[in-house]
């Protein structure tokens, strides 16, 4: 039930983001969501893309440090309280969140999550009947 996140190590300097997005465009890879975690010296770019394997391969060929990480994508309906429900389930199962970021396409809203216990998170979400997006759905989002 995991989806693949493309994680890229970035030095803090002009042009490093552009280099990455250029490579993704040249390989016809669509970026659904992007999040940047940064320190004073470097950053980690986390992305949900339409073809993570190809993305990783092409970035690595260009000498960029990229790897795939398992993350959880939770579908969020457009109504009051969906986030509260999600975090109630996670906190209720005593799970800690490592990082998260939002994703939105024209039709779908989702939250991307990485927790300190991924398997347990899946089980807790399923028990609470919260909609988890699988890889197939994910990479073909409209």
């Amino acid at each position, binding site marked *: 039930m995991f989806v693949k*996140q493309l*994680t890229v*190590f*970035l*030095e803090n300097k002009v042009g*490093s983001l552009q280099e990455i997005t250029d490579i993704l465009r040249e390989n016809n890879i669509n970026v659904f969501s992007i999040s940047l*975690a940064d*320190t004073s*010296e*470097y950053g*980690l770019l*986390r992305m949900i893309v339409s073809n993570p394997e190809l993305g990783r391969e092409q970035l*690595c060929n260009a*000498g*960029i*440090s*990229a*790897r795939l*990480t398992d993350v959880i994508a939770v579908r969020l309906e457009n109504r009051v309280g969906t986030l509260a429900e999600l975090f109630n389930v996670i906190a209720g199962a005593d799970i800690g969140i*490592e*990082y998260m970021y939002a994703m939105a396409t024209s039709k779908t809203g989702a939250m991307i999550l*990485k927790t300190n216990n991924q398997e347990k998170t899946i089980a807790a979400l399923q028990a609470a009947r919260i909609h988890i997006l699988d890889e197939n759905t994910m990479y073909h989002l409209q």
Partner: protein
Amino acid sequence: MTALQSARLVKLVNRVYHNVEYYRKKMQQVGLEPGDIKGIEDITKLPFTTKNDLRDNYPFGLFAVPKTEIVRVHASSGTTGKATVVGYTRRDIEVWQECVARTISMADLGKDDIIQIAYGYGLFTGGLGAHYGAENLGATVVPMSTGNTKKLVTMMVDFGVTGIMCTPSYLLHIAEVIDEMGQMDNIKLKAAICGAEPWTEKMRLQIEEKLHIRAHDIYGLSEVMGPGVACDCKYHKGLHIAEDHFLPEIVDADTLEPVADGVTGELVFSTLTKEGIPLIRYRTKDLTSITHETCECGRTTARLSRFKGRSDDMLIIRGVNVFPSQIEAALLELGETTPHYLMIVDRVNNLDSLEVQVEVEERFFSDEIKELEKLTKKIATAIQHAIGLAVKVKLVAPKTIERSMGKSVHVIDNRKFD
């Protein structure tokens, strides 16, 4: 002097031939008997000794006396992590004290002076070497060591300290602290004896002007003895060598052939009187030239010109010897990064700083910042463990180091020595 040196060299060669297997074998390999060395004119017949020889015979293989005769050991870092160890007999310690005492006299300090020793105490020869020399001269010694500069300044004022021995960069830092504490008019300092790292004539003048003192350059290395091998007098026309104990040669760093006076080459020493670990033609890797002209001060001993660098890649950072290969070995041993690295040495507020950039490869990085921070700390600890200096580690993208620097360059030294 030549007659004394020759007599001592003949004795030295006999001593090492009979007491140190390593030297005996090395002389036999080139067909040399102790009797072939009749004076210093025969010195070039003898093979050289290097830091690697000390390392290969770690820890005590080159000692020429039974261990019961050794009263102290010191150690410095080697090229690949293993320390080079030197041992001193009681007589060696006495000679060392005397040599350091001479340098202090050369700086016009004596038994009526109060001298602060602000080198690190410990395995490093700086602290204890300077300490024993000053004590031997009869001066009042204040063993400060390094670290608490404010306390040092407070005592300098309260005690009426007249002399100080430390690295030149630390002295500049001390001068700044004196300024900050508003104590510049209250110090009684007359002279400083600085060494353990390369410095420039400009830096000497800067120190002298700031503190209104004389600053003297002291040279030494632990393998040969420690500080006190040479020092400059108040005319600052080169460093007078304690030639009765240390026979100097300057050789071409590539051909190892002797060069003429005034020509820059690698400094080589034979320790004429040393008992614990006598060295024959030890290659210091320090580049300098020599002169035998009589100095304006009247001393006739040979003098070394200001040091012009190294014939190897050793760096001296905050008085500590650092080889780039030590960083590489630490990274390889850690196994969590590539061994691609770049050292950036700088001098900020007169203190040396070292940044090590390490390339982060796909297989070593994480999707979590805290893991990368953990990795950074781990690398910094491993390097600090290897070289004995705190470093700042910076993770950089792969290939950036090689691409920008070319494969063999591992060091950018932004400090200015000329």
